[in-house]
């Protein structure tokens, strides 16, 4: 049994002639936190969209937890164990925290098709567990999300990934819209995930954040993976030169 949780082989996506992603070979080990960097339009979001089932790749394979998958929808990816925190928060403002955590995956006391009776107590308890696991503190669980700050909302979105037995968490610029304190809170949660051994793919433009949180940095440029750098063996200057294309992927060989 290998310790690889996710591997893509030759993952390629063309949008009517535009090569948004070409031959992406990517490996993520269990318990590893990898940051994906790159300029706008470098292909990192395209890459993530293939992994999460939002889009289907033109070519290439996705092997997740030892099984080759073709995700037809985000729901399929989620069922396989890939939880994503999207840039635009996928939360319902008028629902409380447990309802948001279990949106579309409710727990039931009695199953009666669409009129299945909710097990509110179990969902509330599981929510508390998930919040403890991620270190998120929310004053009142039964409040609607509408009344919460941006940071709290983001925390709820992240706690959602912990409420289920996810095998991989993907975060797409989780702190892009947050203030300094709120960013610190989210980063703390990411550290908690690291301690718990949860593998993570983090998309970020924030160099400090990436060097703080990630074990490894993968750089995308013009639809290709151009660098795969261990944090200890590189620095900000180095990463920037890969992002801008001043340096090309000579060291890329065999770096997994």
């Amino acid at each position, binding site marked *: 049994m290998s310790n690889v949780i996710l591997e893509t082989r030759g993952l390629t996506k063309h949008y009517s002639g535009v090569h948004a992603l070409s031959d992406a070979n990517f490996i993520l080990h269990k318990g590893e936190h990898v940051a994906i960097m790159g300029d706008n339009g470098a292909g990192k979001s395209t890459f993530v969209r293939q992994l999460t089932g939002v889009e289907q790749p033109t070519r290439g394979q996705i092997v997740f937890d030892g099984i080759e998958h073709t995700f037809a929808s*985000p*729901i399929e990816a*989620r069922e396989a164990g890939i939880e994503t925190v*999207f840039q635009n*928060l*996928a*939360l*319902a*403002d*008028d*629902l409380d925290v447990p*309802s948001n955590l279990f*949106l*579309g*995956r*409710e727990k*039931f006391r009695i199953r*009666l098709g*669409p*009129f*299945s*009776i*909710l097990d*509110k107590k179990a969902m509330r308890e599981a929510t508390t567990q998930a919040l403890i696991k991620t*270190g*998120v*503190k*929310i*004053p*009142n669980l039964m*409040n609607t999300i*509408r*009344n*919460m*700050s*941006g*940071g*709290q909302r983001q*925390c709820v979105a992240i706690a959602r990934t912990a409420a289920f037995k996810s095998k991989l968490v993907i975060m797409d610029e989780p702190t892009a819209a947050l203030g300094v*304190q*709120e960013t*610190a*809170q989210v980063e*703390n949660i990411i550290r908690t995930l690291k301690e718990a051994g949860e593998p993570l793919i983090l998309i970020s433009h924030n160099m400090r954040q990436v060097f703080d949180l990630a074990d490894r940095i993968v750089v995308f440029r013009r639809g290709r993976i151009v660098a795969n750098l261990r944090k200890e063996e590189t620095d900000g200057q180095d990463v920037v030169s890969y992002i801008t294309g001043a340096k090309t992927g000579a060291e890329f060989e065999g770096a997994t």
Partner: protein
Amino acid sequence: MAQTSHGIGGLSYDPAKNSRPPELNVLLALVLITTAFELIGRLFMGDSFLFNTRENVDALFNWQRLNIIILQVSIVGIIALGVTQVIISGGIDLSSGSIVGATAMITMSFAQTAIVNGNPNPKAIFGDWAMDLPVLVPVAVGLCCGLIAGLVNGALIAYTRIPPFIATLGMMVFARGLSRWWSNGNPVSFPTEGYAVIGQGMMPVVIFVSLAVLFHLVLNHTKYGKHCYAIGSNEQASRMSGIKVNNHKVLVYTIAGILAALAAVVVSSKNLTAQSGMGMMYELDAIAMAVIGGVSLQGGRGSILGTVLGALIFGVIISGFTFLKLDAYYQEMVKGVIIVGAVVLDQWRQKNRGRG
């Protein structure tokens, strides 16, 4: 802004935003309006609105008036229950009044009795085969009409993606036309005794209240109810979370259609006749009850309890105006003002609790 710190990194949280349930405000409005009528009655009419003033009757309250207040709103109230779940899930249903008209005409045609006062039924629609059928037949036919109309509404909205306003407007015009065409504009009358029981006396209230309890439970404790709120709150998020939004919408409008049809059965039974103009403006009254009861037209917020209270406010106003011997024109005008007022209040509440 009063703020306290919680959680790692001192996330701000404003406890003042932890607002009281909106139903409380509606209840307050109901009490205020009732008190106003009571005071005006005592001061200007020398009579009480709520309390018994007749000496030959031994009762604290004027039960007759209280009964009328709830009886006169219970038929539209049944529709309002369906409309509430439609609005909560982010839609609107303008067709319910016309569905009442068409369903009443069709249902009554299967509920007729063959002999009226020793003569053949003068309003007979079908031949002898449709006379004196067991009461289950017209009721089943009626509910099927509502089911089909609701199914068409829901399918149009879910699969062609046209706005609910347009889809149900089309159904509204179509169903009204159907109810006129059905018997060339003639009323359909003389139902069987069994059918006449459905809307007799306080039966409409019993039906309305039991359905209200049922739908309160459904909206609060089932997956269906939760998804109504979720879709009305954020349709995109609901879709991404794996909720089958299209199926849900079809179900929502189908249930609304069935409830409108049930209202048609009750109202035609109560009046012992069906007319093509039946249910005119019911859709707007039902929407108004929901809106007055705190159901947000933007979706995601509201409750059955609120709608029931909204219906009671409606009933109190109508009874109050009759009590004060004011013309019906004033009722209409005041109703209009209250509906707009309720929506303005909702908008204003929204703005004031914008995101932190």
